[in-house]
């Protein structure tokens, strides 16, 4: 490199850098590290801060708003001396006119032929910060809204649940409290006929019998409502249950009805293990068996119980009868509370299948029917099966 001769004419490269310095849309300034005073500033920065360049030259950084105060300036310089540079990611400052702006500040310590000089870059990030702040605010607002929304949903769900629980408790209380006076009506009207028949005219006996029959009907209705409310409210916990034992237990409960109807009941093995709540599943089976032996035609009732394991692990239990069957248009409706197809020929409350439906729903299962009039009804319920791996079945058998 040849020594540079002092000349009034700047070199091409000097010109180039001078133009860069003058035209840059970024603040550049040079500071003398010894005095900490500004020795040069580019027009952009001067204008940005609200000064003429001449007003800035010779000042300290804090005097023109760059760096917060003298102490801040001193600490920045200490860092500069230690590390050779200083970087402030975000510096808030006020322009001469008082406008709050945000800048990114970089200072580098250079050695120019044994003469140290600090070159600083000031990058205006006010707009960027504004949008970043707006975005953060929007995010905060959004998450606050989400939280609020969740709270509202929570509150409403709780309200609904409480209302529902109150309603179900109400049904229970009503059904329960109505039974006591009914027992009185039924009991004494029966006693009237049985113990005082001689004192009564035939018509009076008939009237007493009407009271008796009506009270018994109402009592059955309340009993079923109680079961419905119990199935609705009961805490449901699903356990692996061997179906065979439950089917047997349900059949035992129906013994009297089966005997009266002289039904032939057949159970077809194999019986898989299902995930269910014992009391609820038992109630569902009792109702289905009760129905199967009740809605019979001229022929003696034949009832068949069997299970089917689907490839998807779902177990379908069938309760098939040879009874009167159900027309297609009624097959959905019969699962609703108080829906009865037959009022005179077959006694009933219209709650039995609603209990089936509710019970299955509470256990996460389903219920349905395949039937046509005169060809019997095949009721089914679906539950999750329990795969019989050897360990599992071992465990089940160990249970008392």
């Amino acid at each position, binding site marked *: 490199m040849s020594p540079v001769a002092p000349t009034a004419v700047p070199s091409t490269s000097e010109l180039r850098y001078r133009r860069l310095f003058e035209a840059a849309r970024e603040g550049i300034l040079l500071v003398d590290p010894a005095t900490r005073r500004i020795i040069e500033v580019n027009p952009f920065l001067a204008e940005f801060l609200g000064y003429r360049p001449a007003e800035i030259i010779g000042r300290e950084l804090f005097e023109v708003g760059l760096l917060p105060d003298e102490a801040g300036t001193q600490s920045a310089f200490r860092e500069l001396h230690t590390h050779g540079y200083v970087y402030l990611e975000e510096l808030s400052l006020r322009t001469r006119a008082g406008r709050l702006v945000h800048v990114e500040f970089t200072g580098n310590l250079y050695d120019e032929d044994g003469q140290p000089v600090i070159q600083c870059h000031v990058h205006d990030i006010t707009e960027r910060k504004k949008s970043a702040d707006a975005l953060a605010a929007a995010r905060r607002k959004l998450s606050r809204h989400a939280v609020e929304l969740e709270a509202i949903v929570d509150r409403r769900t709780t309200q609904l649940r409480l209302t529902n629980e109150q309603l179900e408790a109400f049904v229970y209380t009503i059904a*329960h409290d109505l*039974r006591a006076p009914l027992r*009185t009506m039924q009991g*004494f009207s*029966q006693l009237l006929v049985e113990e005082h028949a001689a004192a009564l005219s035939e018509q009076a006996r008939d009237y007493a019998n009407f009271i008796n029959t009506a009270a*018994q009907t109402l009592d059955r209705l309340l*009993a079923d409502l109680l079961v419905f409310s119990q199935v609705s409210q009961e805490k449901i916990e699903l356990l692996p249950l061997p179906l065979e034992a439950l089917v047997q237990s349900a059949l035992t409960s129906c013994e009297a009805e089966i005997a009266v109807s002289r039904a032939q009941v057949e159970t077809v093995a194999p019986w898989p293990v299902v995930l269910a709540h014992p009391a609820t599943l038992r109630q569902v089976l009792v109702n289905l068996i009760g129905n199967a032996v009740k809605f019979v035609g001229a022929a003696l009732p034949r009832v068949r119980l069997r299970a089917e394991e689907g490839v998807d692990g779902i177990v379908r239990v069938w309760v098939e009868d040879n009874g009167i069957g159900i027309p297609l248009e009624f097959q959905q409706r019969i699962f609703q509370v108080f829906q009865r197809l037959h009022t005179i020929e077959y006694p009933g409350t219209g709650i039995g299948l609603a209990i089936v439906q509710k019970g299955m729903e509470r256990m996460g299962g389903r219920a349905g029917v395949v039937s046509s009039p005169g060809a019997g009804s095949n009721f089914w319920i679906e539950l999750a099966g329990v795969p019989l791996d050897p360990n599992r079945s071992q465990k089940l058998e160990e249970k008392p």
Partner: protein
Amino acid sequence: MTTDDPVVLLVDDSSNDSLLMRTVFERAGFLHPLHFARSGDEAIAYLRGDGRYADRLLFPLPTTLLMDLNMPGKNGFEVLDWIGHQPYLRRLRVYILSASSRPEDIERAYDLGADSYLVKPGNFDGLLHLANCLISWLKLNHFAPSLPVHDDFESLSPFLGASARTEEDARHHSLVRSAV
């Protein structure tokens, strides 16, 4: 000494139900007199021998309590709890006869020491069936004679522990003692 005769105290606030029970007990051939209390408080008074109940010839201590749960004043649960704290009633069998079939009620009754839980049938034939079964069962049972009210804590306390005593018991006990 043992006795084969059950003494049944029926605790029910419904006089209609009590009357029906008396009828079905008679029809089922129960020859012993039934005793009645119309509330939990009355049952406790009977068992303690308060007032007119001090006459144990008219109001003998029962071997078997047939008790409703839902009653005004002290309910069946409270009576069960109270009985559990009376050492002299340790031979008393308590059968719950309630209209409630709620699992919570059934569990609570057993937890408080009920010996049996029967749900009140909804009709006369059901009641008659219940009375028949119950009487057959009572006939199969042998009963130990009731203990006197002041049957002492002292002989039992090492087994029962202090927790079996309530202040009320202690007060009642001392009253009985001073009377003796």
